[in-house]
């Protein structure tokens, strides 16, 4: 078994109201940033897990997203490998 660290990005679906993003958008505008067309807030979940392979780790993370971490009505997700066993050992 190797240890993998995964970064799971849960993203608000485009087109849905994202009031947090809107509030931040206004705040950025008031600080003087212009030309911002959209701000949306999602979340990042870091998961460390032991798995037989990177592929198995990724599949497990995707299953976690489908079952719990993301709500398909309002969110989409992507899984990124932050570190595998090799990087962690070096």
């Amino acid at each position, binding site marked *: 078994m190797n240890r993998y660290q995964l970064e799971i990005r849960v993203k608000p679906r485009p087109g849905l*109201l994202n*009031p*947090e993003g809107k509030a931040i958008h206004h705040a950025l505008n008031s600080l003087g940033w212009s030309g911002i067309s959209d701000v949306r807030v999602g979340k990042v979940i870091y998961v460390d897990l032991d798995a037989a392979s990177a592929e198995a780790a990724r599949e497990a993370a995707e299953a976690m997203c489908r079952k*719990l*971490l993301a*709500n398909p*009505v*309002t969110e989409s997700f992507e899984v990124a490998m932050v570190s595998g066993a090799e990087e962690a050992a070096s």
Partner: protein
Amino acid sequence: MRVAVITFPGSNCDYDLYKAIRLIGGEPAFVWHRQRLQDGFDAVTLPGGFSYGDYLRAGAIARMSPIMEDVLAFARRGGPVLGICNGFQILCEAGLLPGALARNASLRFESRDVLLRVERTDTLFTGDYAPGRILRIPIAHGQGSYEADHDTLDRLEAERRVVFRYVDASGEPTKEANPNGSLNNIAGIISEEGNVMGMMPHPERAMEEILGSTDGRGVFASLARALAAAGAS
């Protein structure tokens, strides 16, 4: 009418719900989320609150509780299930009702009375109301904006599954009357089979004159009457 009131860590409307059921002559019983649902209940209710601190998404963790397997089975057998506020969020997360409850458009926790129009009076939960009646019932939530994809929304409307809608004093579902940004001013919906209802407003807080409104009584009285009629037939 024996009614289970399911409690999760962080439920906070469980006693109000218990008392509401008592007030209309029902027999409520608390069922802790780690227990199993015993036989003999005529209905199951999921109270409001902040189960698991609303972590991840409101209702997302509670949905994984052991009791929810039994609630799902009870619902699939046609048993009446009512989810209020956090209970509605849990029912959506559990897939018993379509859609999701997202953060209020205002970004504020909205705690105040709202006006609701009763869209359906031919359900287990609304039979005692007059058609089109306007109710004054409190809301208290931060994540109550009803969201669903276009197809789901069209289907809900076509199948008349919106039971309550936020309206103004003249009964119109205006933008100003919508406290949270819900699509189509949706405040409550019912399942395809008609036995599972979820609503964000709190009828259990509108049961007695001393609390400012008795408009919520109809939800519980309707259910009691429907169950009594079914039992008698």
